[in-house]
């Protein structure tokens, strides 16, 4: 970088001057681009939800049974963990915007820790399911087992979707660590925080996806059946 970017001026026939929007220093453009990227996430998870709804329609009872057998306590804790992490992320961004860089970094660290906690809890959940013989390419999920089709498909999609969601969390942690490095290098500053803004948006979309994943997997079978494993 050698010197700040100065926008060009275009002059119309009456001599009026109009500022030209360049690709440089375009905060709104960066934000718009990231929103467009998030639509692709929505479409991706939308397609998976469609696969889920597809088999739900074919096997409604199996889906309720399978959903009832998930561990709602751990799922609920994870929901709250993610919820609070969305708050810390938002507060971090707010601190950055008003110039409190140190507080912003603290908040990002808090988000990273909560994200890691989410993954650990998820790991315990998967392990419990594995011990029940339900895991990809394992025991109950093999073609020969007596688990009904609907339940097999439910769990197949459960591991795919929560796995992909977890993958997004891992990427999110990576992004936040990168963000901290950029803040330390003063590439992200209170007057130039588009990266922080977009990573906060990313974290919100990860949260938003969980807001739909959680009830569809854990809660639809909650009626009448109580407790998890």
């Amino acid at each position, binding site marked *: *970088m*050698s*010197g*700040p*970017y*100065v926008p*060009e001026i*275009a*002059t*119309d*026939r009456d001599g009026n001057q*109009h*500022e*030209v*929007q*360049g*690709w*440089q220093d*375009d905060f*709104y*453009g960066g934000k*718009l*681009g990231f929103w*467009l*990227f998030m*639509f*692709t*996430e929505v*479409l*991706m*998870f*939308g*397609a*998976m939800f*469609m*696969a889920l709804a*597809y*088999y739900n329609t*074919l*096997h409604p009872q199996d889906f309720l049974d399978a959903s009832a057998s998930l561990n709602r306590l751990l799922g609920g804790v994870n929901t709250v963990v993610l919820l609070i992490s969305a708050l810390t992320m938002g507060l971090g961004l707010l601190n950055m915007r008003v110039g409190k860089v140190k507080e912003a970094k603290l908040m990002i660290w808090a988000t990273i820790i909560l994200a890691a906690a989410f993954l650990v809890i998820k790991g315990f959940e998967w392990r419990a399911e594995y011990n029940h013989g339900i895991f*990809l*390419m394992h025991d109950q*999920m*093999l*073609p020969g087992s007596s688990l*009904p*089709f*609907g339940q*097999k*498909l439910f769990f*197949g*999609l459960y*591991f*795919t979707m929560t796995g*992909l969601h977890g993958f997004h969390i891992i990427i999110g942690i990576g992004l936040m660590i990168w963000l901290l490095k950029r803040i330390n290098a003063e590439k992200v500053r209170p007057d130039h925080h588009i990266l922080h803004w977009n990573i906060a948006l990313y974290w919100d979309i990860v949260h938003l996806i969980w807001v739909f994943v959680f009830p569809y997997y854990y809660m639809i079978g909650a009626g009448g059946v109580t407790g998890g494993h």
Partner: protein
Amino acid sequence: MSKTYFDETHCAIGHPKSKFMQWMLTVDHKRIGIMYAAVMFFYFFIAVATAFMMRLELFAPGGQFMDGDTFNQAFTLHGVIMIFLFIVPGIPAIFGNIVMPLMIGAKDVSFPRLNWFTFWLYVVGTVVAMSSLFTDAGFADTGWTFYAPYSINTSTNVIFTLVAAFILGMASILTGLNFLVTIHRLRAPGMDFWKMPLFVWGIYATAWIQLLATPVVGITLILAIMEKYFGIGIFDPAKGGDPVLFEHLFWIYSHPAVYLMILPAFGIMSEIIPVFSRREIFGYRAIAISSASIAGIGYLVWGHHLYTSGMADTAKVIFSFLTFFVAIPTGIKFYDWIATMYKGKVILSTPMLWALGTIITFTIGGLTGVTIAMIGVDIHLQDTYYTVAHFHYAMLGGVVFLLFAGMHYWFPLVTGKMYDEKHGKISFYIQFVGFNLLWFPMFIAGYYGMPRRYFDYLPEFQIYHQLSFFGAVIFISGLVYMFVVFYKGWTKGKPAGTNPWNATTLEWHLPSSPPPLENHSKVPYVDFNPYEYHHGHPVVKFNYETMQRID
């Protein structure tokens, strides 16, 4: 204006000294577009050669030199290259990159470094796609559609192709994203949406499809990979999975994808027709809106690929109904173009010849599409050569012909030189005749029941295959001829000047030809419509130093 990082190097990383590295690392949209073109045509010729091999095999009934499995791999290779490597990225990546920022008076796309990254992502995708050719298990033999459950069961290396298609899809998404933000943010002052050239409208509609349809196929391919290696069950009937779901998800992307191919091509047509008729385009807004509505309706018609797959009857009727609707905006465009030529001063230069030829071939391709959108007719014609001919009339005779038209039209802009008009016209006529001889017999063969993707056939179909073969020979010679003309034009052509066609849009108002880095010397103020002609002459004139209007 102070120098920025970008001004000094136009490279994504560092300040390389060598010319080669400057190209490899360039973020300049024009150079990236040219590199896309180079890579794409490299693969295009591989796919053409594969297709020619298949035509040779089909010259006579029975096996000649290819067995059935090899033939399966050959048509998969042809399909994968032509669809994922060539025609889907095709016009947006080449001309969307080179011309679109020039047309809206921008210095570059919104995210130049992302553009550079996208190009290399695309190159990685192509390499992954091709690499399975050199493995033991061989290239995929599923056809480019990867239908489950066969793609799950086949012993060939379908994983490479799936991963490649995913990577190429990512590249496509990022291109679309970049263009959308560019069109929203970087239009020159004064240029509102109704003052944009129609090619930009085409790119805009396309970019929405790239952005919102490609993720669906991306996740479908991931699910197919998960199915193949982790057995999640959703496409595997042994675990209750429904292959029809795969077809739904696949065509939710892949049908809009054909509109993704044709819309920027229509944009090129909308540029060429007014310029070579020396007349303002008829129905500017109708054409712009029809681009948007083709994109919109295009999302809702994927089911016509599933008429014979066991979809519910109600869904079939709805899809058939919606499919007819796509013909309406397409028809509007065609009538507008013809109305533009009426009472215009039509100049039959090579780009115009290609555009006019496309009006014929695409009309055939489009109308045969309407016939197979009917459920009853489609039951008879599904997966026959009729469908193959329809598809190639629409894609080769529509998209690729217009890509060639665009290549002739913007050749002087990109190279600064002029190709030989006479030879350009001859190559058009050769290809036009060859094209029709190649594909038209297939309509008849398909109508009589010749199935697609077979390496053998009954003797009564021989005449159609042989006609097709001769058509292919003529077409390919015309193709090679055209590229020779381009090559000669590039090396020995006369300097073209900045506006050889007397065109009106902003990409022809540049200070030099080929355009300098950072495009226009100053960003103009746009207070005029894109195609203003008065008595056959462009209305708007600029001083190319200050970019002030001087008319």
